[in-house]
């Protein structure tokens, strides 16, 4: 198939960017979206044009490195990551607009590559269970009811790709926060730091300049791992409990 691509190009963090239009031919529907961009880049280089910079690593949908706004949808039209999106989701002759994630907290580094280190700093603020190596009791010592274990797992599948922020009209990272707070909060091991964790992580979230949640639900609908919106409610509840405990 033949496609027209409108791609955001920006030379560096401080440069002004703009859209460039390219066409690619001979794209097979079995190719992944990123393989289509690889092909574009090979062609661009042959013409002496610098290739489009975009992030990707595992290309199996698990590392969370890739992430593009594809014609207005985070990770494109399917519920998956950009790397797992295949060209059979597009039709011949289509025009596709490709933009980087847009958020104050995710500044553009180059072209379609953004800096998501804000997520790391949110985890640093409290997204962990404090246990030094060697200090752990036997793994079987604390049974975890399957319901809690499953909910914990469901929310632990977050890959930190940032699609929730990208899709949110407020550029809020509450789904990311809620997923971590629920993952650790559902487990007996996570109880000791439950209150401080949520308070510190929310403070860091605001400090990074993410917006507030308006419970619209674009985040959960764009999440490639289908993390449900109820983790945000869990986050709010945990914060309420923590605020009361502080008094």
């Amino acid at each position: 198939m033949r496609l027209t691509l409108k791609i955001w190009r920006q030379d560096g963090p401080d440069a002004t960017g703009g859209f460039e239009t390219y066409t690619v031919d001979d794209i097979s529907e079995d190719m992944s979206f990123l393989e289509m961009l690889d092909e574009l880049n090979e062609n661009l280089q042959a013409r002496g044009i610098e290739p489009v910079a975009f992030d990707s690593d595992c290309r199996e949908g698990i590392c969370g490195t890739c992430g593009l706004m594809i014609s207005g949808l985070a990770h494109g039209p399917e519920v998956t990551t950009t790397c797992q999106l295949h060209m059979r989701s597009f039709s011949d002759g289509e025009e596709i607009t490709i933009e980087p994630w847009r958020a104050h907290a995710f500044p553009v580094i180059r072209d379609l590559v953004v800096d998501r280190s804000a997520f790391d700093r949110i985890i640093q603020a409290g997204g962990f269970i404090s246990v030094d190596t060697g200090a752990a009791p036997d793994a079987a010592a604390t049974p975890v009811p399957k319901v809690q274990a499953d909910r914990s797992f469901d929310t632990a599948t977050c890959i930190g790709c940032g699609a929730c922020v990208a899709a949110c009209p407020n550029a809020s990272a509450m789904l990311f926060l809620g997923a971590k707070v629920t993952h650790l909060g559902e487990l007996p091991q996570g109880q000791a730091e439950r209150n401080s964790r949520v308070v510190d992580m929310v403070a860091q979230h605001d400090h990074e300049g993410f917006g507030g949640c308006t419970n619209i639900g674009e985040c959960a609908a764009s999440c490639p791992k289908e993390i449900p919106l109820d983790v945000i409610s869990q986050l709010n509840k945990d914060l309420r409990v923590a605020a009361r405990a502080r008094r």
Partner: protein
Amino acid sequence: MTELIDGLYREGEPIADSKAPDGPIETRWERHQFENALVNPANRRKLSVIIVGTGLAGASAGATLGEAGYHVKTFCYQDSPRRAHSIAAQGGINAAKNYKGDGDSVYRLFYDTVKGGDYRSRESNVYRLAEVSPNIIDQCVAQGVPFAREYGGLLDNRSFGGVQVQRTFYARGQTGQQLLIGAYQALERQIAKGTVEMFSRHEMLELVVIDGKARGIIARDMVTGEIETHLADAVVLASGGYGNVFFLSTNAMGCNVTAAWRAHRKGAYMANPCYTQIHPTCIPQHGDKQSKLTLMSESLRNDGRIWVPKNAEDCDKDPRDIPEEDRDYYLERIYPSFGNLVPRDIASRQAKNMCDEGRGVGPAIVEVGPDGEEREVRRGVYLDFASAIERMGRESVESKYGNLFDMYERITGENPYEVPMRIYPAVHYVMGGLWVDYDLESSIPGLYVTGEANFSDHGANRLGASALMQGLADGYFVLPNTIRDYLAKGPFEPVAEDAPEVEEARRSVTDRIEHFLTCDGERTVDSIHKELGSIMWEYCGMERTAEGLQKAIGLIRELKTEFWTNVKVLGSNDQLNQSLEKAGRVADFLELGELMCIDALHREESCGGHFRAESQTEEGEALRNDEDFSYVAAWEYATKGEDAAELEPVLHKEDLVYEFIEMKQRSYK
């Protein structure tokens, strides 16, 4: 040192001491830990350690050394330590917990790992790995890793290829992700405390060696292009495996050998580079524009049945129309006791044999055969869940494998609940890597290597669910207890930023970058990488021959010249430049590929992931030659003359002595 052998390499002194303790194997590690010197807590903060790579092995080591109070600097090329490719491991992690009471023990895990590795690993190391394995599970559970649980709330286990006990802990099909997130969170906690300094989007491009000791690295900030010098008392490489030398592999796009290869060029030995694991259950290639291969967890083999049509003329039929009596469940037929659960190397090679016989399925792909002729071959075999769905019901198949089935459907557009999946082997893991002694220290003092980057504990073949175990064992429990013996001698003499060795290392980095940017040739980096990959896959893949390997060495040398004279890298150094990053990696892959072929050529036996067509039993199984090859091949870097166009490495042998386990021909029949 000997004369040039086969015109390719020389043989040097054997490795005298691997520091492996002697005595009863059960107490070796405990005694060794006691004998290793301690560092007073007050002194630890004066000691600095650089860790390159933040996958399971790197992040766990970083967190543990940070907790101990050392000053740690960690580096990764990704935008966050949470992205390392350990995250993609699906199936699980082994541990000798014996929670199922099915006769498992540390000794049995030790035995299985040595046997699975085809008797090419160091007994002391493997025993230690099995010994610390239960602690890993304890540590991960305490960190909040949500392992699968049963309704009673206790941890669940499953069995995995090559073993007959249930010792594999798992978190659906995302075990690697959950373990890495656990290690990542532990690391982030130390970053917040200030004991660990994190350098994301940084790539190590050179090792700094002063007075024979590893004292730092030269790294490039991939965002600004700045070439930075980082100095420390010790350096740990946890930089992962080099499967991307094949271009198409299940590795992440960024996985590379550069950190390890730069250390190799500075004197670290590279051990058994030809031991490559080809994973049997990957999604077959769709065409020539493919960028990577996707693995599906081997756990699928627990319930899926592998088959090909008995008759080649059935190969293009709808598999559902092929009657039972015309299907060849070849693994169940050849290996009645292990069936579909034979180790990876065997499952992979048999799939290749079936396709070579013309009984493969799926689209026919044009390829160049070993004779140089083009041919069309169907590269795929069926992995069928029809009988599992009948037996367990669709719902329980869905709960066990749903995410894998979804992934398959996304990639291929076929529904595996209806049509059998097609699978084919792909490069997945390398058992080879930098040589290390029992302390995980390389042949350069002060340079430690952990995880897949070292030649490790897996011998010639790794068992499923053992890579995660080894990475975390190294990082959480082994390295922190061995590196202290070295650090106890420090802090070492401070190194000046302008020391001649530092300047030399920086120059080598900047010269290379300068060359790439000004070469102005015709070929893109990817096109050369692809060409290297197809040479490696054809001649140094699942089946190797002396003739093919010699041919490959010639082809790689030509390609190397082509690369250095005709590559085209656009853009500049002072910005994010992904072509430039790739160019540096491919330069090192080219040299590594050559060494892999030399190693494969010199090892005139078949063992584990190394199959030489000349060395097989009458039934076509790998035939070891313990008499002549029961050693680790540790290669020292050397070139023909000053010009690095051709390698002329020096082989150092470390003899493998088996005191506890009797070497046998592996049998899974």
